[in-house]
């Protein structure tokens, strides 16, 4: 007979109690399974892969497929090669939208960067009510774009524009400005609203960057004989560059693929003169129902954004290596 196990009195019953409880084996197996790093990694990664696959990879692949097909609403369509891309390229509205997208992105980013930097430098100083100002500055950023853009549209309204009224009453203009009824004005209105909306993001991010710069460096520079502007140029700006590059790239990506703002403010009008790639793609693909052509138009954004991201990554790698 086996030796009695501690606690057991040597009887059969005592031996039984000392054995692992049958139910206790299950958690043990689970533990062993979880201790396998590969299995655990797979389990932990699964949700992410699932979400990214469903919401990014699938739509992207679907978009690429659509752009190569003649699919339209109610018609499955067939593979047509690059026909959709060629058609878009020969479309004058597409060319306007394509140019507009660059124009809009370029100027909006320039203004957001300059004003955001200026605001960040101001907010980096000490003054009474600093916290309230910093917090309230984020308002344009947190109000839903559609909502704020509606407000702006009202301000640019051909008949009831409060801006026209102010300028007129102030004696600065004699006839009303065609804010949204002229293509050029319309584009600049959109750039203005985009700047207004995106500036806080720049300001907050740059402010965070500014606060990592040791104030002693500014003091050292001022003792070294650098005035305010030179201190900015020789000390602040070089140290802020990595943050700036990241913000600018984020902003370029968002602005380049902007949709809501134009959709609400001008709807691409007047006479399709303020379309961006995203709004035109929507117009062709969804409103008109030519899904293939719409997908092709929106895919024109891909190479541009790809280059931007690549440049950013290259810059950041170099910064890390230096």
């Amino acid at each position: 007979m086996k030796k009695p196990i501690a606690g057991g009195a040597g009887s059969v019953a005592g031996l039984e109690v000392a054995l692992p409880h049958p139910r206790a084996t299950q958690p043990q197996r689970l533990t062993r399974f979880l201790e396998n790093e590969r299995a655990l990694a797979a389990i932990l990664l699964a949700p992410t892969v699932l979400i990214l696959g469903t919401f990014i990879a699938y739509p992207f692949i679907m978009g690429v497929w659509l752009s190569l097909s003649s699919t339209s609403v109610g018609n499955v369509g067939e593979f047509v090669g690059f026909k959709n891309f060629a058609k878009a390229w020969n479309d004058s509205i597409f060319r306007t939208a394509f140019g507009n997208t660059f124009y809009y992105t370029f100027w909006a980013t320039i203004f957001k960067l300059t004003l955001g930097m200026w605001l960040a430098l101001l907010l980096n100083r000490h003054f009474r009510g600093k916290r309230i100002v910093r917090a309230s500055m984020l308002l344009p950023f947190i109000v839903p774009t559609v909502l704020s853009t509606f407000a702006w549209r009202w301000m640019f309204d051909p008949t009831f524009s409060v801006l026209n009224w102010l300028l007129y009453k102030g004696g600065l203009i004699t006839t009303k400005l065609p804010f949204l009824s002229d293509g050029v004005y319309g584009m600049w209105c959109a750039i203005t609203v985009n700047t207004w909306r995106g500036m806080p993001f720049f300001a907050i991010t740059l402010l965070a960057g500014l606060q990592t710069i040791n104030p002693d460096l500014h003091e050292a520079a001022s003792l070294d004989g650098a005035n305010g502007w030179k201190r900015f140029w020789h000390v602040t700006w070089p140290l802020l560059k990595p943050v700036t590059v990241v913000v600018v790239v984020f902003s370029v990506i968002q602005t380049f693929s902007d949709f809501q703002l134009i959709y609400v403010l001008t709807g691409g009008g007047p006479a399709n003169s303020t379309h961006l790639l995203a709004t035109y793609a929507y117009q062709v693909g969804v409103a008109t129902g030519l899904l293939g052509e719409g997908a092709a138009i929106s895919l024109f954004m891909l190479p541009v954004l790809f280059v931007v991201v690549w440049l950013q990554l290259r810059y950041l790698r170099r910064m890390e290596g230096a």
Partner: protein
Amino acid sequence: MAQVMMKDLNKKYDEVHAVKDVNLHIRDKEFMVLVGPSGCGKSTTLRMVAGLEEITSGEISIGDRVVNDLPPKDRDIAMVFQNYALYPHMTVYDNMAFGLKMRKFPKVEIQKRVQDAAEILGIQELLKRKPRQLSGGQRQRVAVGRAIVRHPQVFLFDEPLSNLDAKLRVQMRVELKRLHERLETTAIYVTHDQVEAMTLGDRVVVMKDGWIQQVGEPLELYGRPANKFVAGFIGSPSMNFVDVKVADANGALWAETQGIRVKVPPIHTSRLVPYKGQQVTMGVRPEDLHPASGSDPREYCFDAVVDVVEPLGSEILLDLRVGNNTIVARVEPTNRVKVHESTRLALTPDRAHFFDLKTELAI
């Protein structure tokens, strides 16, 4: 080369009066050290000289110019910061050249001055590196180099060694002293380390709570502290303080407290007469106590019980209990006393100090 004068200097922040009526004359070519615990106003004083803090009231002049309203860059000073404040994106060379570039020096002159400074500091090989590729000591040298290339009238040092490890600190201390002898430029040096203050300063200013406590040469501060604070601050381990009663007996004055009854040394007698029957604070440095031998007069001896023995190699520190007081004595490394043993100590009579109990001023 220039002297620095501070007249009735005050600095008030919203609620804090950081610097109070500071009057100080720093002579040409002098190495002046401001020392004190944190928050004593020493750094603020230095920053006011630099022009980094506004002056609330009073006057600062460098050379024969009042600089109150001059921006930092026009004061002809250079400063070394505690955390070095090197421009992280510039090479060592550019860091040192920056001030000269801003002042539009010709390129050849810049190159010459940077090379010279690099040679003095032994950092010629580092000129092409970025600050983050340097060790703490090397960064410190670059920071000093950045200051000396400008040939300023006054050097300002704001705790420049406190970020270095102990060994390097001692080494840099010596180098700074040598550098000062070589450059012969007026220097104001802020530190909280009294050893640095004593070893570097031609004269030392001890500050506390915004007030100057005493100005003097290192040994003067050590030998004749103006008050209890200076007495306790200068010297390590710090001075022992025991509250004693001044008693008159057998035609002499005696300092008495529980466990101690020593005669007031003759040099103090006349000054302590008015305190007869009152309490005063007696101060004796650990190095002025020694194990009593037959040759020590009995009236300067007392018994104490050893609490802790701290052998340091070159000396032994004894923490002792006398009545309700704890005192420290610094004795020869050959001493063989043990914990809990009673031992007889003698004090060096003319090295005892007495302080008024209320004003804490030296008597």
